[in-house]
């Protein structure tokens, strides 16, 4: 590693990095899933066909750190996109069924850990196994995790899972090891359409804004950004998405909030309840007849 060549890369600048996932150019090839499993040595199970379009991965789990969603959406009108951009990207094509009776829009998106600014998994982890890296990402240290499972229901996105063979919590590390070696995360590296982009988070947000503007100008009114707002319930996501429908269509929560934000209120309530308990006991024991 020569400092002279790579001084502007994240590990040298200490900048927060993240993903911009532009679902408008995702072709559903699942190269991201494969590259992730290859690099991170995750289990590749050939399961049953789910019947949910081409999605046989199912969900983000301890072994699936990328998950390509496929949505087949019936639509009353046939929206034909504008001609191909110079960059060589096209919008998802609206399909007309062979019988011509209805049309179908096919949405694809590669989902991943959001590496939240305010991360619930990290907040609730009792061992300190989950930690914030120098890249601003959230990573599990498998040698410390004792498999308590608290992070699993805490995550507002249902991302993190517990691996039943190792007993450890596991999720996307944003390729922490690759970042340390000034490499792009495996999924972004493998993505053939630049649907998954990687870089400093500020730049990712700018690109997302720019791309949104482009699509809106071209009449794609379904386009919306997800996770880009630092004032949202998780303080902004480390993985910004450009979606072509409501978040819940992709299985994403529409207004996620880190539960820990209300922790002070919850401790206060529990203190009042505890005092009530003491009050009831004291009043009964001291005030009561025997």
């Amino acid at each position, binding site marked *: 590693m020569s400092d002279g060549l790579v001084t502007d890369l994240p590990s040298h600048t200490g900048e927060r990095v993240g993903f911009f996932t532009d679902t408008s150019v995702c072709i559903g090839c699942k190269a991201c899933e494969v590259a992730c499993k290859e690099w991170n040595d995750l289990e590749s199970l050939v399961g049953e066909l789910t019947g949910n379009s081409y999605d046989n991965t199912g969900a983000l789990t301890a072994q699936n750190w990328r998950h390509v969603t496929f949505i087949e959406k019936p639509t009353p009108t046939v929206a034909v996109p504008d001609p191909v951009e110079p960059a060589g990207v096209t919008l998802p094509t609206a399909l007309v069924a062979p019988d011509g009776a209805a049309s179908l829009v096919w949405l694809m998106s590669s989902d991943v850990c959001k590496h939240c600014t305010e991360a619930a998994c990290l907040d609730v982890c*009792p061992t300190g196994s989950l930690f914030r890296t120098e890249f601003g990402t959230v990573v599990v240290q498998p040698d410390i995790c004792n498999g308590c499972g*608290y992070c699993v229901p805490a995550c507002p996105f249902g991302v993190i899972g517990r691996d039943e063979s190792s007993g450890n919590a596991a999720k996307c590390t944003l390729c922490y090891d690759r970042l340390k070696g000034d490499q792009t995360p495996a999924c972004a590296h493998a993505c053939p359409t630049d649907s998954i982009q990687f870089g400093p988070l500020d730049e990712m947000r700018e690109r997302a804004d720019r791309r949104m503007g482009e699509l809106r100008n071209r009449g794609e009114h379904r386009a919306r950004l997800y996770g880009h707002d630092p004032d949202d319930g998780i303080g902004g996501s480390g993985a910004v998405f450009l979606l072509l429908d409501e978040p819940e269509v992709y299985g994403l929560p529409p207004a996620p909030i880190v539960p820990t934000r209300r922790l002070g209120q919850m401790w206060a309530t529990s203190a009042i309840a505890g005092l009530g308990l003491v009050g009831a006991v004291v009043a009964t024991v001291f005030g009561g007849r025997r």
Partner: protein
Amino acid sequence: MTAPVGTLKRSDRSEAPVGYYGKPIVRAHIWDDTIAWYFFTGGLAGASSVLAAAAELAGHPQLARHARRAAMVGLLPSPVLLISDLARPARFYNMLRVFKPTSPMSVGSWLLSAYAPAAGGSWILRELGLLPRLGRALGVAAGVIGPSISTYTAVLVADTATPVWHEGRRELPFVFASSSLASAGAAANLLSGLERAGSPIAGRLAAIGVGCELGSVELMHRRLGALDTYATDPATHRFSKAATVLSLGGAVGTLLSRRRLPTIVSSLAVLAGSVCERFAVVRAGTASASDPASVLTQQRPTG
């Protein structure tokens, strides 16, 4: 649903399930039933230590002795239940690797580490009649930490993305505190009844606990509205119903009975009701998190 896409009929496509193929948006907790038992045993221990300390100070040594024993009945299985629910139980000590105020489980681990020696020490010393002043001091310490042992578990579940738990965050600490109080009163009454005769003070506390428990559960139902998994999930509903019947029946029986056998049976009913109340909370969480509609209702109150 294992049919390949090509065989799906158009009607299958147009009947849109909630969210993404009806799949959960958040993930349900993955704890075993041991966690529900721990919510009960920890709650019983904490509230019993409060009762023991108060009874000792008020000059009711018999009641204090029974409450200390009830605290041990709750405390002794608690670490076993907690550690057995870890996927890496051999690493349980990592719970004390850091202190994290943002993690109710970390706070609880430290509270339990402070509480256990105090409650255990006071019990041993008082039973053996050794070092009475230290025994009493430890008893007071256990009584001071006790309420937090009874209620932190409510914060633990509320501090998750599980809709029914998070939206029940204002009532759950009261449900847990009062259910703990009911179980502590019932346990002391039971031990007292087994020895000679029931303790009227403990019986009254059990009844007060049951009243507050059922009241705060009712308030929680009202707040939850459409999010109320208690009404929609059969397992939750059964446990909740059982909790109400057992607690209420036990409380009435406790107040009315003058003889040993009815006292013992009534106390056991209150204890069983408290167990069912915790199982209802745990089951409600599973059902709530597994249902994508629940998350959408929580996050889109207008739509």
